[in-house]
Structures are given as structure tokens and as C-alpha cells.
């Protein structure tokens, strides 16, 4: 059977997210409880979590989570990193052996910062420098796979049910202000760890439920700008599109939502405010290759915030809730109720309407 990336595998899923706007850091316990309720939406072939604010002592360094198939690939990768980065700290990521999770790769974590003279010679900013290096590792070092590479954040994912993945990574020992989770129901897969979600680049992480019908149009468009979609998954292509639009084009996430889940032309024509009408049609026209069609609900994590977005027809469920300073998102209301049974407000965001939450003390992205 072909490995993920050699063949495109469609999947159904469950997603969940918790965001503390006041910056309060909570353990991974709650997000595990939430995603576990939706056990039936996964089939044990992939689960994962993203946490933000989890490495306060190293918050100025890029935190790399890396999978290795072998010691050789680890050595090769470390040589590669050594030439380009200052490695402040490296260790195995502590895991708990459980019978539910098998065939684990070697899982390492590094805190790094670009070597100043290398960075200067490259004439790139440090985000671009780092992301290029990580894409290089994934593309060219056999058996090495960078799972996440942002600052003060990390992705924990594996083949298994999400609650088992949480136990495996001892997620309850981490504290963060923002968490997302994913349980996967791929229609067929040999179970490759890197193929699980969240998918991430720098501090951007995406969990996604759906199967987009515009996939190949989007993939071929984003690959034009230097990304290579090796996994052939929707989540990967959505992550790259968002990275391109925010980091390379300088759009806000809300503007991104008007690109990927653009309003219908009929809606735009009916928009009364002329400036807004022009802005919406400009965005749709300018970035027409990045319109995403077909069902999706996504949670996008980033430093200091989270965005929830549905496709414009709302072909996948997505519920949001609020309690005090905490915001919840999930595929199912039950997964919110289990951790907050008395929310101040609970609602289903409309198709194509982004819900963006940010830390109260930080400006929006």
C-alpha cells in the first residue's frame, strides 16, 4: 500500500479548541477530555494536539519537534541544524509507553535560534530562514520529519485515538493559553505519524475537518510560491495558503477568510457599502486560486490567537462557545459541554464567517 503523500487520502474528522483570552495557562487535560467525547469521529488512525504558551522559559527560541525513523536520520538532521542554528537545548520528548500507541518513531525536541552570521548572509528574515530550513529537512533528509517549528508552541501527534495520543505525550504536564486537537478518520492509510494533524509551519497550526474539492487547484497554486505539498492532505495545503497570505502577502487572518471562504458574487453584489464591496471583489479576484470549495471546518492556531472558519456553505459542523475569558470551538456541542457545562453563550458560526480570538493584551494578527 502506498504511504501518505504518494496517494491522496480523504478523511473525516473531529476538531476541538480552547483559547484563554486572558492568557491564563491551562494543562492539556481539558482539551483531551473534549476531543475524547468525539471518539466515534476518529478511527484510531491519527490524533494530535497543538499547544501555545507551553515553553515560556524558551519563548524566544524556535521549538522544533522532530520525528526520526532512525539514529542515522537524527544524526544527519542534527548536523544540518548545527550548521545553521544555535542549538540551545535538545532532548527526547518525554513519552509514556502505552499499549494503544505502537511503532513510535524517535521523537526529539530542540530549541534553536538562527546563527547570526548565517542569517545575515541569507538576507532573509528569521522566520523565512527557519521555515526554509525546515522545509529542506522534510524534503531532503530521509526519515526525518519536522512536526512543528514555532516559538513557544508545539505539536504532539501520533497514529492512534487522540485521547491515547494525549496520554502518550503526557499532555497533562504542559500548560498553555491555547490548545487545539484533532481526531482523524482517514478512509485508508497505512498510518504514518507525520500524516496525523495538526499540521504546522512556524507558529501556524491547522486542524481541519472536511475534504476540499478545490484541492488540486489550491495545491498547484501554492506550490508556485515555493511550498511543496508532500503529504497531499487538505490540512497541509490550507496551512501553506495561510502562511503565504499572511506572511508573504501581509493579509490579516480575517482578510484570509475572505479569500479562502470568499463570499458568493451575489453576496458581494448585495453588499451596500461600496468600499467593502470593492474590497471583497478585489480579494476574490486577486487571489482566486486560493478559494477553497467543498466541506471544511478549520481551527487555525497562531501566537496569541485562534481562528475558526467554516466553508461558505457550512458543509461541516462547527460550534463555538464562550465562558468568561475562555472561548471554545468544536465539531460537536457535546465536546464543549463536557468541559464547560454552563457557557455564557453557545452558537454555530455561519459559513464563511471567521471567528477570530486573540489575547486581550495583544493586538490582532
Amino acid at each position, binding site marked *: 500500500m502506498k504511504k501518505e503523500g504518494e496517494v491522496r487520502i480523504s478523511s473525516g474528522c473531529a476538531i476541538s479548541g480552547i483559547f484563554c483570552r486572558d492568557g491564563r495557562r491551562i494543562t492539556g487535560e481539558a482539551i483531551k477530555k473534549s476531543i475524547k467525547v468525539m471518539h466515534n469521529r476518529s478511527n484510531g488512525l491519527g490524533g494530535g494536539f497543538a499547544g501555545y504558551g507551553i515553553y515560556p522559559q524558551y519563548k524566544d527560541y524556535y521549538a522544533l519537534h522532530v520525528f526520526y525513523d532512525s539514529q542515522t536520520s537524527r544524526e544527519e538532521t542534527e548536523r544540518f541544524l548545527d550548521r545553521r542554528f544555535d542549538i540551545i537545548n535538545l532532548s527526547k520528548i518525554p513519552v509514556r509507553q502505552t499499549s494503544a500507541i505502537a511503532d513510535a518513531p524517535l521523537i526529539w525536541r530542540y530549541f534553536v535560534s538562527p546563527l547570526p552570521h548565517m542569517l545575515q548572509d541569507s538576507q532573509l528574515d528569521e522566520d523565512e530562514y527557519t521555515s526554509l530550513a525546515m522545509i529542506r529537512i522534510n524534503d531532503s533528509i530521509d526519515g526525518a520529519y519536522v512536526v512543528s517549528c514555532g516559538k513557544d508552541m508545539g505539536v504532539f501527534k501520533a497514529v492512534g485515538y487522540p485521547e491515547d495520543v494525549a496520554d502518550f505525550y503526557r499532555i497533562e504536564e504542559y500548560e498553555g493559553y491555547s490548545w487545539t486537537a484533532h481526531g482523524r478518520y482517514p478512509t485508508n492509510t497505512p498510518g504514518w505519524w507525520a500524516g496525523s494533524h495538526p499540521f504546522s509551519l512556524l507558529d501556524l497550526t491547522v486542524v481541519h475537518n472536511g*475534504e476540499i474539492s*478545490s484541492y*488540486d487547484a489550491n495545491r498547484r*497554486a501554492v506550490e508556485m510560491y515555493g511550498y511543496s505539498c508532500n503529504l497531499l492532505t487538505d490540512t497541509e495545503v490550507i496551512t501553506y495558503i495561510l502562511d503565504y497570505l499572511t506572511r508573504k502577502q501581509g493579509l490579516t487572518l480575517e482578510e484570509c477568510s475572505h479569500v479562502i471562504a*470568499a463570499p*458568493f458574487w451575489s453576496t458581494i453584489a448585495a453588499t451596500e457599502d461600496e468600499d467593502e464591496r470593492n*474590497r471583497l471583489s478585489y480579494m476574490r479576484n486577486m487571489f482566486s486560486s486560493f478559494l477553497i*470549495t467543498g466541506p471544511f471546518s478549520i481551527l487555525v492556531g497562531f501566537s496569541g490567537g485562534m481562528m475558526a472558519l467554516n466553508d461558505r*456553505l457550512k458543509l461541516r459542523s462547527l460550534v463555538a462557545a464562550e465562558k468568561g475569558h475562555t472561548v471554545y470551538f468544536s465539531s460537536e456541542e457535546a465536546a464543549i459541554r463536557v468541559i464547560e457545562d454552563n457557557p455564557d453563550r453557545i452558537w454555530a458560526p455561519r459559513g464563511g464567517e471567521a471567528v477570530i480570538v486573540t489575547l486581550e493584551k495583544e493586538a490582532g494578527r
Partner: protein
Amino acid sequence: MRRYRIRKDDSCVSCLRCVSECSFGAITASENRTLVFHHDKCVDCQRCVSFCPAGAIYITEDENRFRENSVFRKDDISEIILQAETGGVLLSSMGAREKNIPVYFDRMLLNASQVTNPSIDPLREPMETAVFIGQRPEKIQRDKEGRLINNLPPHLELKTPILFAAMSYGAISLNVHKALAAAAEELGTYWNTGEGGLHESLYPYKENTIVQVASGRFGVHETYLNTAAAIEIKIGQGAKPGIGGHLTGRKIIGDVSRTRMVPEGLDAISPAPHHDIYSIEDLAQLVMSIKEATHYRKPVMVKVAAVHNIAPIASGIARSGADIISIDGYRGGTGAAPKRIRDNVGIPIEFAIAAVDQRLREEKIRDRVSIIASGGIRNSADTVKAIALGADAVSIGTAALCALGCHICASCHTGRCAWGIATQDPELTKRLDPEKGAKRLVNLMNAWTREIKEIMGGMGINSIEALRGNRMALRGVALNEKELEILGIRYAGE
């Protein structure tokens, strides 16, 4: 030389309608009202068959045939005989007919949603077929307050991803132009004047008109350039890449002469190359001078024939400042072309789209230009496949003429079109009522658009831009590895 045989049966009521309908002189009447058939003059245009009130007329391939030979087929032999008699270049019209070259559209099949994602019902949900074609800048710009500035150059806005292809006044009649212009206006798309200029009576349709500038520069003046939504520089056409055009002085009469700005009775010759474009930098200059003349308010298109090197050619055009590249494939039609050129030069449009789209992506400039594909688009499925391969839109010539009555008899070059299309003979041109013609074109395009929506909905795609270059929507059958590689698609079952 006889190719067809005309027959009638007993139901003939001797009304002599066929005699008046046949513009090729293949059916005449003797003094006592009996029909005389001149089989050798028949071109199988089917006009008489369509108009016989009794259904009494039959046109068939002549069953007298040459002795079969697997190398020298019937046409080969009769063409040799004809050329031996006349010493001339064989002329023909419409698109290439070489049977051994597959129609690749027929070897690609479309996808549909099942279980893992839903199909979308176009009757219940919006299904968007509108496309914008033109250049896109590399980056957004913001003003001091951080608001987005609209930095998009002028675009064409199409309600459906289909345009009418360039066909010149002179090659076809004014009535055909009228029908195309009126239909384009009603449909929210564009028609194209071709290289014979724009008749003054059609100036009111300027918002839906694309005017062409070809090597002969017929009918080109400042008003002409500005009486259009876009300007197309024609370098070549799929039916006759590398070849110019020749409209005989016989057709340069009256309004044709005035519109083309060619004296009556003088042959209108389009040189093979533009004599001011011998290289790509010359093209860039022409693009820029046209933009100057139209005050940067209109997109400039460049039309080329699909030839072997189409990918780098398209890349050069994209970098010349052109907004839209129009690529015309091997099977593209024409009013007149040397038969050998028509049947042997160029490459199929399917490969050209795939190669150009891929190349422009590799060079990171695909978003900078739009691609219009033409040359053998027969129906809505071909349109969808062309877009999934990477075109922004398609244009149709032959299919539009068929809607107006053309039966593809490939005799346009004779100027005797019995359907009143490819002719200037007033007796014949009046056979086409422009209003009725426009209605038929509108019907055809509406029907195709409905079908495109059905197909898209089945794939779970509700906007045409999500289909562009979406090659996963296609699977190949009866294609070899190389063909799949160039088309960039997988085999059925993969």
C-alpha cells in the same frame, strides 16, 4: 471530383426548393421541372436536406470508390489527381481532420463526489461560473490607513467561461457578426472581430467586443482600438500556424472594403509574420504601444497557435506585458487554409494547455496572465476539461457557427456557404437572421452553462476558479505514460 451522391425518393413533390437552396449549383432543374443532380459539385452542406419539405433528398458518400489500399487512402489518391490537374495548393477550411490524431478530451474522464464529501445541487445552492481574466499584480498594496488599494490592471469579466472566437468580417458575413455581438451582450461575455475590422453598425456593442490586430492591420485605427473591451494581437491561429491569410478581391466589396480599409477588388493579404514582430521584444513593444493608444484601460491579449514550443512561447508572451494569452490548438477552425498545413502543423490544444499552465507555474507567473484555450471545443464537457487542465476560459468558433446553421462542410473558402455564414453574397447572407441567430447562440451558451454547473456540482465544486488547474478532477483512459505525464493527470483507477 465526385465525393457525394445526391438522390431523391418518390416522396419528392417537385417544389424545386432544393434548387434554390443549393448555392453550389449541385441541383438544377430542367425545363420540365425535373431535378438534375451534379454530384461533383455537392459539398454535403446538408442545406437541401434540411429544407426539403418532403424529406425526399439524400446525400451520401459516393459508394464508387478507389480500390482499397492501406497506405494510399481515397483522399490521398483523389488529391493527387486534383493537384496533377491544377498544379495548385489544396485549400480547405474549418478544423483539422486527421483521423489518426486522437481527440484527447475524449480520453479524459471527470470526477464526482461520493460519501467522503458531498455533491452540491446547483438548483439549491449558488453555483458560480463567473471568471475574471487579465493580469494580477504580484503583491497587494495598502494606503497609509492600511486599506487595500485596488491595484488590479483592467480585466474582462465573463458570466460564463466561454467567449466567441475571432472570425473576421469578410470571411463571415455581417449578419454573423451581428448575431455574435448581440449574443455576447446578452450573455455577459465577449465576441471577437477577427482581423477584418469592426463594422460601424456594431459600435454599440463595444463593451462586449474584442478587436483584433493582425499582421495585415486591416481596419485598425484609433477609434477601432477604443471601441472594444480588449485588444487581441493575433500572431497565429491553430488551423494554419505560420501562415498568413488571403481574402480574395472578389470578397472585398462594399462594406467589407470600407471596414477593412482595403480598396474594392484588391486582395487582402495578411503576411505570415507581423512585419514589426520578428522577435519577442518586438511583441512587447507592440503590446505597450497598444496600451498607450488605449490609455492602459484595456487588457491586451496575444493569440498564438499551439506549436511545438508553446510553453516557452507562452512564457515569453506573459513577460511581454500581455494580460491574456489565447492559445488556438491544432483542430482550430478557419475560413480558408492550405489543407496540408491545417492537417499537419501544430499540436492538440489539450497538450498545449497542460504544458503552458505547468510551465507558467514553474516560472511562478501563472497568476500574472490568463489563458484562453480554443481549437475544437465541442461542448460543455470539453470546456470543463480544458479548465481543469489549466485554462481560465475557452473560446468557441466552429461550435458557434454550428448554432447558426453551419454543418461543417469545410467549404468556407469557396465563399458559397449555403447557410449564409461564410459568404458575402447578399442572396446567401440574408438566409441568416441575426436576431434569430443571436437567440440560438444564447440558447447554446445557456445550455452549456447549465451543464457546467451540473458537472461542477457533482464534483462538489461551487465556483469555477476552484476548477481551474484542478487536475485531480481528471483521469485518463487509453493514454500512455508520456501522455499522462504531459497532461499532468492520473490514469483511471489510480
